């Protein structure tokens, strides 16, 4: 007997499978996965084990969706965003500027890391390259903001479809990077660094930032069931951080468009952009500390700044005057 009786867990995922992907992905990949996950969930007797099955199952579902459905969605987004020549030009301009901004932000971030971690001088450069995914977690949202700002400088228009497609693709990439690539690379960096500096020493245990999305969710549910609430809250903060950082790529692109439309002087636009991005990272940092201490819900701490930027930028764009701003004066 292997089919589920009595209850139907993961119903939302089935709803998502039926709407968010092609027939091929649904029938060959997502529905067989869901059937096995439902079976696994129903087989568990203890409530916490069912919770773990639900969370790891949800993570496995989204990973599968991202692997094939995500590629498919990416193709559709590119087709949608690159339809007309003007949209293609806008997307290309944004991509070029985002690429440059991400490189600059990565270089800045890596050099700061070298200054603040003197031990890194003794580690081979090949190993330090493993720090790049973690660096990109900061560089990508910052790069999206400044890239969009520079690409749309002074033209005083709204968000082009091509630009929206680029920002959605960046968010998708950021989600994969934050959820699976960066944690794996972080742990590999820690292990190889310890091996290079202290040969023969045991490899370091995985911390909160070295767990993938599914592992974080499962561990949080397990610790909550064991009554270790503070540890569970810390893991939930890390869990929410990944999609929130991905969503920040879209929010910051929108913010850059709003700044481009509302603020005439280039230096004021850039100053405000620095202010916005610093505020977002400061709010995340404060929120994370408060959520770790159990004084704030992890969801509010991590999603709050993103929602604020999104709503603020939306309002600024909607209430902007119809006429484009005057030519550059700075």
């Amino acid at each position: 007997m292997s089919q589920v009786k009595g209850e139907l867990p993961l119903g939302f995922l089935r709803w998502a499978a039926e709407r968010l992907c092609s027939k091929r992905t649904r029938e060959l990949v997502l529905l067989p996965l869901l059937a096995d996950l439902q079976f696994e969930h129903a087989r568990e007797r203890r409530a916490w084990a069912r919770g773990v099955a639900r969370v790891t199952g949800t993570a496995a579902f989204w990973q599968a969706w991202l692997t094939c459905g995500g590629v498919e969605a990416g193709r559709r987004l590119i087709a949608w965003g690159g339809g007309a020549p003007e949209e293609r030009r806008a997307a290309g301009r944004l991509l070029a500027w985002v690429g440059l901004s991400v490189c600059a932000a990565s270089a800045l971030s890596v050099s700061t890391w070298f200054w603040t971690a003197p031990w890194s001088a003794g580690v081979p450069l090949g190993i330090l390259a493993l720090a790049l995914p973690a660096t990109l977690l900061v560089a990508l949202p910052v790069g999206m903001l400044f890239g969009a700002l520079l690409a749309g400088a002074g033209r005083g228009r709204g968000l082009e479809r091509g630009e929206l497609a680029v920002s959605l693709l960046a968010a998708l990439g950021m989600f994969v990077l934050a959820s699976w690539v960066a944690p794996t690379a972080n742990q590999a960096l820690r292990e190889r660094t310890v091996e290079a500096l202290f040969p023969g020493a045991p490899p370091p245990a995985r911390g909160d930032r070295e767990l993938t999305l599914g592992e974080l969710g499962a561990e949080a549910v397990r610790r909550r069931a064991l009554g270790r609430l503070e540890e569970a809250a810390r893991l939930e903060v890390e869990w929410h951080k990944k999609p929130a950082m991905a969503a920040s790529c879209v929010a910051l692109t929108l913010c850059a468009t709003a700044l481009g439309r509302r603020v005439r002087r280039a230096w004021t636009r850039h100053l405000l952009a620095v202010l916005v991005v610093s505020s977002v990272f400061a709010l995340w940092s404060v929120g994370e500390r408060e959520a770790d201490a159990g004084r704030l819900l992890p969801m509010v701490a991590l999603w709050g700044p993103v929602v604020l930027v999104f709503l603020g930028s939306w309002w600024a764009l909607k209430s902007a005057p119809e006429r484009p701003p005057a030519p550059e004066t700075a």
Partner: protein
Amino acid sequence: MQSESRLKSAPRLPEKEALILDLLAAAGEAFGLELVEASDGRLKRGTVYVTLGRLVEKGYLSTVQEEPRTGSIGLPRRLYRLTPLGSRAREAWKDLTLKLAWEGAS
């Protein structure tokens, strides 16, 4: 050197696909999650179905839906089996890698 370049131009069976074919050859038939359990961590739950789907499309695997049972409300699970083409592809891949390894060593 010569065998290396020959290996690059030969048709390839990716590692995960070869592993799934091996596991199914040993088990006869299996559900996706059973393959993950049998793989000792080499297959992941989030990606095994993507690879299985690809193998079904290539014609290397066939899939059978479990018979619905009275009272069950969950989705019917899918059993995967090797097709004759899949068995031949697996054997051919093994022969090829063995031959090239032998040529490389000699």
